[in-house]
């Protein structure tokens, strides 16, 4: 059992840091430190292409498709250095982390040739069409319909929370293709071009004034008959396979962002005198401890090479970080005091810490609410009996 990384891995870290810091000090200094997912979208598409031109776009992919075949440790290191250098989030993270691996695993040779090079090159931006107004936590109850007509898939319905749909080129959609089916059966996994008359996108303004999410409406929207992954009716299997690709490589990178937020709170507390309040001191210590435990929890999870059984500990990670960060938002406001509730900005844009307070309310909801996470932990990790399902 070791805490750190090997010499070779640390050399790789230095290489990542050099390149990323050089970019953030040079050609792409204008996007350094952007906190939201939406600001300067065009420049960030250019950044995707810059990453690709230097072979940093999808290092975990196989070399033949534009990756480096990087080890898990190297991917983790790149994610850490990426966040540490203050590079803003990837606008094509869905393409790189979800769509690409799904096509690699379940797609045909033709589909790999059609999509992978352009995803890797930052030319095709993907978004994800899973959730619907009535299929949130209960993801399998999708109602969006798909049928084949004149050699094309025709799709009708509505998706919601489609993050970054307004700047994306393609969307993958889980739709009900077999009339009369319920739940996970009869679903098909389609890939659809967004720029077409049958798809309409409306932004959803959220609690912090930003609009990262969208409603996506499908009215006789079309894609080619072979633009599906797997067979018709296998959509649920593909969707679950896709979610399993989120193995937590990005979590350590995400923690670097958390580190920056906590450091900012510590600096604010020292500056405004709250650092001498014993209760604030306890909460800052708790936040620090929680962040460290998150790091070593993630390292345990990623060091576990036995994938033959459900890694129960890994199931606890999402609720752990989400709850920690929501608490951090509250701590930030308690450190700032009332000053955290005003801004000179006339567009309702907030400082990092005030924005953290607002935005972190979503952390315990998206990607499975805390309540759903507890069900998963209890049923899958602890083997407790399933809740009987309703019939409405």
């Amino acid at each position, binding site marked *: *059992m*070791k*805490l750190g990384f090997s010499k070779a891995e640390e050399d790789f870290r230095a290489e990542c840091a050099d390149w990323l810091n050089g970019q953030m000090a040079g050609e792409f200094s204008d996007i350094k430190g952007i906190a939201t997912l939406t600001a300067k979208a065009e420049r960030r598409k250019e950044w995707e292409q810059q990453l690709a031109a230097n072979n940093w776009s999808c290092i975990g992919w196989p070399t033949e498709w534009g990756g480096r075949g990087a080890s898990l440790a190297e991917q983790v290191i790149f994610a850490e250095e990426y966040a540490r250098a203050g590079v803003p989030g990837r606008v094509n993270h869905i393409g790189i982390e979800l769509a690409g691996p799904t096509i690699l695993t379940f797609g045909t040779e033709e589909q790999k040739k059609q999509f992978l090079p352009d995803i890797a090159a930052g030319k095709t931006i993907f978004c994800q069409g899973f959730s619907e107004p009535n299929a949130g936590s209960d993801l399998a109850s999708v109602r969006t319909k798909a049928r084949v007509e004149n050699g094309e898939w025709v799709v009708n319905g509505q998706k919601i929370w489609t993050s970054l749909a307004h700047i994306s080129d393609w969307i993958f959609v889980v739709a009900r293709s077999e009339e009369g089916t319920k739940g996970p059966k009869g679903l098909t996994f389609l890939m659809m071009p967004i720029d077409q008359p049958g798809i309409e996108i409306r932004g959803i303004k959220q609690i912090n004034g930003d609009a990262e999410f969208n409603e996506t409406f499908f009215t006789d929207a079309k894609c080619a008959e072979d633009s599906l992954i797997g067979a018709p009716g296998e959509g649920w299997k593909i969707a679950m396979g896709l979610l399993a690709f989120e193995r937590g490589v990005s979590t350590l990178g995400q923690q670097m962002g958390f580190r920056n937020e906590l450091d900012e709170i*510590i600096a604010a507390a020292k500056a405004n005198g709250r*650092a001498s309040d014993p209760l604030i001191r306890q909460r800052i210590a708790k936040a620090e401890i929680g962040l460290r435990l998150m790091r*070593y929890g993630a390292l345990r999870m990623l060091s576990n090479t036995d994938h033959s059984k459900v890694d129960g500990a890994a199931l606890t990670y999402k609720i752990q970080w989400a709850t920690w960060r929501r608490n951090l938002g509250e701590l930030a406001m308690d450190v700032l005091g009332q000053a955290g509730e005003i801004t000179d900005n006339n567009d309702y844009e907030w400082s990092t810490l005030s924005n953290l307070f607002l935005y972190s309310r979503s952390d315990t909801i998206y990607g499975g609410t805390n309540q759903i996470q507890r069900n998963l932990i209890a049923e899958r990790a602890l083997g*407790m*009996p399933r809740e009987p399902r309703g019939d409405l």
Partner: protein
Amino acid sequence: MDFAFTDEQLMIAETAQSFFVDNATSERTRKAMASDGFDRETWRAFCQELGLSGLLIAEEFGGSNLGMVEFANIAEAAGAQVAAIPLLGQTMVGQAIAAGGTQEQKSKWLPKLAGGEIIATAGGSADLQANGKKLSGKIGLIPHGNIAELFVLSDGSNAWIVESNANGFSVETPTTMDQTRPLATFILNDVEGEPLANSDAAMAAGKAGGWICLAAEALGGAQSCLDRTVAYSKERVQFGRAIGSFQAYKHRAADMMIEIEQARSAVYWAACAVDEGSDDAELAIHAAKAFCADTYFKCAGDMIQLHGGIGFTWEHDAHIFFKRARSIQTMLLDGNWHREAVATMLLGEAA
């Protein structure tokens, strides 16, 4: 990136788990609780048959010179059964003498500790008065002080080795809520103490060993509370369903697991940081002691609640975990103290 147990560490952990399950049974622990809080049979087997009592001690002194990770594997397994053994004191004294003792002190005492030939414990009080080598005063709340024969005692700045058979030494044993680790009061009247060569090093190492021991025990205990509660939730039927199928029940069990997995990271981060001499070691140890103690108490309290009436009885083992959990929370300084130590590292001293 290799933050996972080696095969050897896994083997030690598994050996220790089955040893304590087989030996530190509820029956034996309860027998110890009814007398002096010492399960002699388990301790003797642990020291002599299992041969793991000298795990942290150097080979030249009869130990096996393994690290804190392996030690934490053992303490976790002992804690999972709330074994009534003097592991805490033995560890603190062994670490203190190894880090701060003279060569002669090490040669004299470490082999005896490694072989389990002598029972040891540690304690301190600012009230302890030293007049040359003669110590006087009262030191309270010493774990397993009622049965120990060898002590490392300190006044906060200096530390001495003291033996229970020294002239002027006496022990009082109040009733202790956690009967698996009784707390004793030492009364010293001009008792001869042998100064350690380097008191600072001895106290630092002793405390570090003690904190990791308690954190690992707490991790093991908390996991037992969860395991036993989950097992019960599958057997107990109310309203025509196993109670474990109710979300109100499941969510509490899930919350226990979320804390326990963090506690596991805390223990092995701290143990690894000590073994590697990491700059984070001090932070990690404070984090582990505070976090694991709180986790154990939460899980033991939830265990009682989730068992309903049976969990409140003497007959059920829940109270044994609950009392040990409470004892760990305050032993060797409470969570607020450890978190303040972390806060000081981040924020400086409180103004």
